[in-house]
């Protein structure tokens, strides 16, 4: 079956712009996670959704970052007033339920010029 998909695969933007990154989880998975991975580092947790609600957003670095999952399926990570330090690969993962094996998408590579 289809895995986790993320769009776009690459996004180049200018400092100060707004971006949206999309994640399509595996069908039926109730838990959805966003991570961010900088070059040479392991992924860093950002936020976790159980259904439509953000159950844990402790990893969001500041209020420029926001994520939604209005219908409990697709999720969008939104970054306002992007900064060069936001450049990274943004990974999305989903699992059947919290605690189940997480399946990762290929990521979106964000470059802020």
């Amino acid at each position: 079956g289809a895995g986790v998909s993320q769009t776009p695969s690459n996004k180049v933007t200018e400092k100060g712009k707004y971006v949206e990154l999309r994640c399509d989880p595996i069908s039926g998975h109730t838990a959805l996670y966003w991570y961010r991975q900088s070059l040479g580092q392991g992924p860093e947790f950002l936020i976790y959704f159980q259904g439509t609600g953000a159950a844990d957003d402790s990893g969001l670095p500041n209020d420029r970052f926001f994520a939604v999952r209005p219908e409990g399926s697709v999720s969008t990570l939104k970054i306002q007033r992007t900064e060069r330090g936001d450049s990274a690969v943004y990974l999305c993962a989903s699992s059947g339920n919290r605690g189940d094996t997480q399946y990762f998408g290929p990521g979106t590579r964000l470059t802020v010029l």
Partner: protein
Amino acid sequence: LAKTTQPISMDSYEGQEVNITCSHNNIATNDYITWYQQFPSQGPRFIIQGYKTKVTNEVASLFIPADRKSSTLSLPRVSLSDTAVYYCLVGDRGKLIFGQGTELSVKP
């Protein structure tokens, strides 16, 4: 959250068995030990998970001593395609906390 320590890099040759050890001295009672594999430009991929003793699947084995303060991922007869970064994670299986991982290089 328990912190993990694993070698930054390892080298091996095709056909050899590779053992990657991870230290997690302050693992909590409810914590599981999970290993992920990541290839360049891809998301991490689940390899194996365990709580204690030994777990084996079609890809790897995971050895966990009684005190659970360390664990060893064993990859039998590696091939060039096993060249990747391997992450050891300890936690309650929800929010995953990744370290820097071990970069395994398999040579012909």
